[in-house]
């Protein structure tokens, strides 16, 4: 299952890299990418774990760059 989000207000490339690394470590994530230029987050993960993955990802993003708003793409 693939989910895409727009990270509105993503301002720092290093933060994007940190988010990507942290989300990739979540349980059930096969591949996560944060594209700094298109401001897009793409998560490929196991279907049944997706809701928790999304919740955890939101927390990670809040932690690294509090001003970023997660929008559905």
């Amino acid at each position, binding site marked *: 299952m693939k989910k895409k989000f727009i990270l509105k207000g993503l301002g720092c*490339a290093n933060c994007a*890299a940190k988010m990507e690394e942290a989300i990739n470590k979540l349980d059930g994530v096969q591949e996560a*990418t944060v594209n*700094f230029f*298109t*401001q897009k987050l793409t998560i490929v993960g196991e279907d049944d774990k997706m809701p928790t993955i999304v919740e955890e990802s939101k927390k990670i993003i*809040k932690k690294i760059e509090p001003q970023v708003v997660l929008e559905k793409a």
Partner: protein
Amino acid sequence: MRKRLYLICFSALLLIVAFLVSPELQWLRIALFLASYLTVGGEIILNAFKNLINGQVFDENFLMSLATIGAIVIGEYPEGVTVMLLYQIGELFQSYAVDKSRKSIAGLMDIRPDYANLKKGDELVKVDPDEVQIGDIIVIKAGEKVPLDARVIEGTSLLDTSALSGESVPREVTVGSEILSGCINLNGVLTAEVIKEFEESTASKILDLVENASSKKSRSEKFITKFAKYYTPVVVLVAVFLALLPPLILPGAAFKEWIYRSLSFLVVSCPCALVISIPLSFFGGIGGASGKGILVKGSNYLEALAQTEIMVMDKTGTLTKGVFKVQDIHPIGISQSELLKLAAYAEGYSNHPISASLKQAYGQEINNQLIDEVEEISGHGVVATVEGKKVVAGNARLMEKMGISCSETDLNGTVVHLAVDNSYAGYILIADELKEDAKQAIKELKETGIKQTVMLTGDTEKAAVKVAEELGIEKVFAGLLPGDKVEKVEELIEQKSEKGKLAFVGDGLNDAPVLARADIGIAMGGLGSDAAIEAADIVIMTDEPSKIATAIRISKKTLKIAYQNIIFAIGVKILVLLLSALGITTMWAAIFADVGVAILAILNSFRALNVKDL
């Protein structure tokens, strides 16, 4: 961004006033400095505080706050304030530059249609392309983008396909033509039946591809992310030692002096310049390439392309047009035009590709009433009566069978012999044609530094060698079945150096396994062919082989820019770190090493977008 600009201006104003106030009014100066500092840096400090609670220690807000507050604490008010101010100005520039590059890439990729004119009964309704379904009827007016892949059912027009293919000559479409989303309708009104949903349409697929390309990271990007991960903690650690050790060990060393030096370290410790500029170069290169009709499916492929040593090419459809055409007319006893006319008439009823090419070369309407008693002899040719004359057209075996002697030919391609009323009248040579830019393509490839060019083909040795000689290709393997091609590519991969790459160029339809096996698979003529887009790493949307060299040049330029940025950014940072450790520079140099370098690196990456002359 505007709010930030106002804050910066206001803060700068306060700072100037603070400098102008006479040093005797110490308290007023300090108050002004602090006001200026809080105006511009308040948000940073707040963010740093929030992040600290979240356990993010080495983030740039924190480092910058620590450095500037440190400077203020040791009494260096002007420096603390100015560094924060410059940092914010730098950030503003940086976000402006990133925004600008985002926009220019989006502009290059401006193929996403905003709406579709859906026909509902007699009415036209503007809808989101997403809502249109297969089989729906849409109308595309002049100047509008084709929203979904569709087939024309009414109207003729010229389509500008340049956004998809980089091809500047407009394409003519009429009833029955397939039109691809992302093209622009130049003049007529087209009514068309939708054949693919929006998600599956060409424009969506291409956009998806290019946007996702940067998620396949290049080696230089991976290196930089890794470097950044260690760089900041190491620099901060050194800063701590620098602040504490020398004053304790060295006799006469002042705490204030060494703390100042260590604060400069903190300013330089953010790796953002590096982390932005490298992927930005690749993003720019990929964006630029797609504007030229070259789709690169990942930064890693763009990087690998520059290291190509062996370029293996398929012949038919890649270097040649894959369409049969009359190449030579060799009459005996009659005129060239007469020979061609008789051949076209004799083959008038046949649907064979050879007949089609004869008719095309003849170029005039065939008057069927002039043809009589047609007899097609499978595997041999045709015997027919044309304008009362008995015409035999076919291969040498047919001539032999009919008892007509014909000269042995030693030509590449298919030879059609003709006899009129039982006497030999000459032959017509039909062969596949080289693409106009095939020769130029090989020449340019060699100029980009490809060490070996190889051609693979299922054709006969003789035909293949001739083509290779004409184009200047060094090695030829002929008579191959599709399975043999994979084997040959594997053999060739063994021959290249460890760092070098092997690229294979094919049409994407029959060559999928070879495309997959090569280090870099390049498919030609991808426009409208899903198979080619699926199978390859790099897709050339047009049929021009010379675009392969263009892609390599874009790759080389991108890589050069990326390396320049790596060396420049790391170089300046290390230099400034050394100088500040020795106490030679001030915090000003440190702030330049941080934001100045970031801006210069971003501006440099911008160049990757510009591929006009490549």
